[in-house]
């Protein structure tokens, strides 16, 4: 905290003023623990900044190439496809994951609940290739679910539904766990009161629990979406085509070489950063009542 105050002063004030302020601060108590933590933390942030900087310096040296690659229909289409598939997965998660999260939040601790919780977390602990295999084996043309579904015309192998289902699988724990945390924060007393006032279970959920958990649902959705659009190994096993962005970058890296893949990568960084910044900014308009619960 203290270091921030100092640097703010240095940046804001005139040079002279800041110098005297700097002197005023000297000799004051310095919290070395916080300073140490800040230095260690800065190293971690530094790696990310350095990596992006090294990529940016190369890309910004040749903006024409960057622009050409970034605006090619292949890249634009792939980014849109990835974002759409991610959003699609999140929609499905909202539909199926929200009820699950609620049940987990309200169920009393039991062995069965523990088992369900572990199953929900499985995608978190598996190597992504294993997750991909699991999805592939279940949804491939001869898979337990893939076979009957392909009979009614829903094919997963190398198709959009395959991408969505793989994203859904790997992103589900992020959504379910975050939303569940939100539901747990809503006091049961509020629900009890609503019930005695005449609201049924679903009305109570809709009018009390859900509005008070909106912030968690929103951040769960953003987290899950971020996780979904970043997936590679899980998706590539069942749906190599159509190219999602990570597959496209990998393909380009192995065939066209480093220059093209780097340009695509940089374009993705810019777009993702922009989108996530916007999504985060929007959080402040969602479910402000959470804090008062």
């Amino acid at each position, binding site marked *: 905290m203290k270091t921030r105050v100092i640097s703010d002063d240095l940046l804001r004030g005139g040079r002279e003023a800041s110098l005297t302020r700097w002197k005023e601060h000297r000799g004051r108590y310095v919290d070395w623990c916080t300073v140490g933590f800040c230095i260690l933390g800065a190293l971690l942030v530094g790696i990310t900044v350095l990596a992006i900087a090294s990529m940016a310096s190369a890309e910004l040296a040749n903006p024409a190439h960057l622009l050409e690659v970034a605006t090619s229909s292949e890249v634009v289409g792939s980014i849109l496809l990835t974002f759409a598939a991610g959003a699609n997965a999140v929609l499905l998660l909202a539909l199926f994951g929200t009820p699950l999260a609620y049940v987990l939040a309200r169920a009393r601790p039991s062995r069965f609940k523990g088992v369900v919780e572990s199953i929900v977390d499985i995608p978190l602990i598996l190597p992504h290739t294993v997750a991909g295999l699991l999805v592939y084996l279940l949804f491939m043309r001869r898979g337990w679910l893939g076979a009957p579904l392909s009979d009614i015309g829903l094919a997963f192998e190398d198709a959009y539904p395959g991408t969505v289902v793989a994203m859904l699988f790997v992103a589900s724990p992020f959504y379910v766990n975050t939303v569940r945390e939100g539901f747990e924060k809503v*006091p049961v*007393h509020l629900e*009890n009161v609503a019930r*005695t006032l*005449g*609201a049924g279970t679903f009305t109570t959920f809709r*009018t009390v629990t859900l509005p008070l958990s909106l912030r968690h649902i929103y951040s769960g959705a953003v987290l899950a979406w971020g996780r979904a659009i970043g997936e590679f190994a899980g998706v590539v096993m069942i749906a190599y085509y159509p190219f999602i962005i990570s597959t496209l970058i990998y393909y380009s890296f192995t065939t066209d070489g480093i220059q093209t893949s780097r340009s695509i990568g940089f374009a993705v960084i810019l777009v993702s950063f922009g989108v996530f910044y916007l999504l985060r900014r929007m959080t402040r308009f969602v479910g402000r*009542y959470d804090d008062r619960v």
Partner: protein
Amino acid sequence: MIAFDRVSLTLGSFSLKDVSLTIGKGDYYFVVGPSGAGKTVLLEAIAGLHSPGSGRILLRGEEITALPPERRGVALVYQDYSLFPNMTVSENVSYGLRVRGMRKGEARAGVAGLLERFGISHLADRYPGTLSGGEQQRVALARAVAVKPEILLLDEPLSALDPVTQEKFIEDLRRLHREEGLTIVQVSHSRRETHLLATRVGVIIDGSLVDEGEAEVVLNRPRSREVAAFVGVENILDGTVTANENGVATVDAGGRTFEAVTEAAAGEAVTLCIRADDVALAVGTDPSARKAMAGRVVSVVENGPVAEVKVDCGVILTAVLTRRSARDLSLVPGTPVTLSVRATAVHVIRG
């Protein structure tokens, strides 16, 4: 109105054991007991929020053990008020009407009179997070009353309020009970509230209903030593009956003899309960007074308008005087005094 028939229920560390009780229409029923005794669980069981492991709950003579809370006509107010933070005061109060299908404008108009009555009209568009404890409590009560319940359940509604607000709220509750003819069940561990409001009292200790009945009886003639200690009988003495003449027993307790109205026979071990305001205190030693006990003041504790005076006269007895008279008598530790207790003021617990 409400009847529990041997209800047992376990909920984490709280439990009810074989509780049978009857709450009549129009009763102001107090459920008292130490913290963690299962009082709130009992309230929630009446509301239908927990289903009992065994036993039956009857409402208006019909079994409702499996009826969901929204169909019981019972409103609940928690100690923490539990206002919906995402709704304004007006929306909170009209919530019950809204979920019954009333339109927003209609519901708002419907509760306007109620807000007026509880003195919260000026808060109608505020959110609960911005209200004081007393205001929140009023909103919670108005919200519960808005659905016109037959039974109002209150879970320690006064414990989080400052003394001045408490007084006002007790007045509100008393009026509500009198004017609406509501059946009110209130959980409390405050003796004062119980004395002020209750018509009937049930005492729960460790999940069991250990005493139940008219407030006057439970508070002044408790059934067991445990209950006596809980309802705040100041003087509880163990003794033995030495003689009994026509229902007036002489009891020896710690070297002092007391007369009490009881059927207990000579030789029987009994517990004596004497309320502090039944102990008469006079300064000085007055050998002429029959059955008077001489002793010395041990301590004088002023508590609002009254003073509790502890006197050592072989046994320690507590007497209560107005603060004014305690000062007029200039009682200090060591002052010699004489105590006397009427035989009819001594309640005897047998066995």
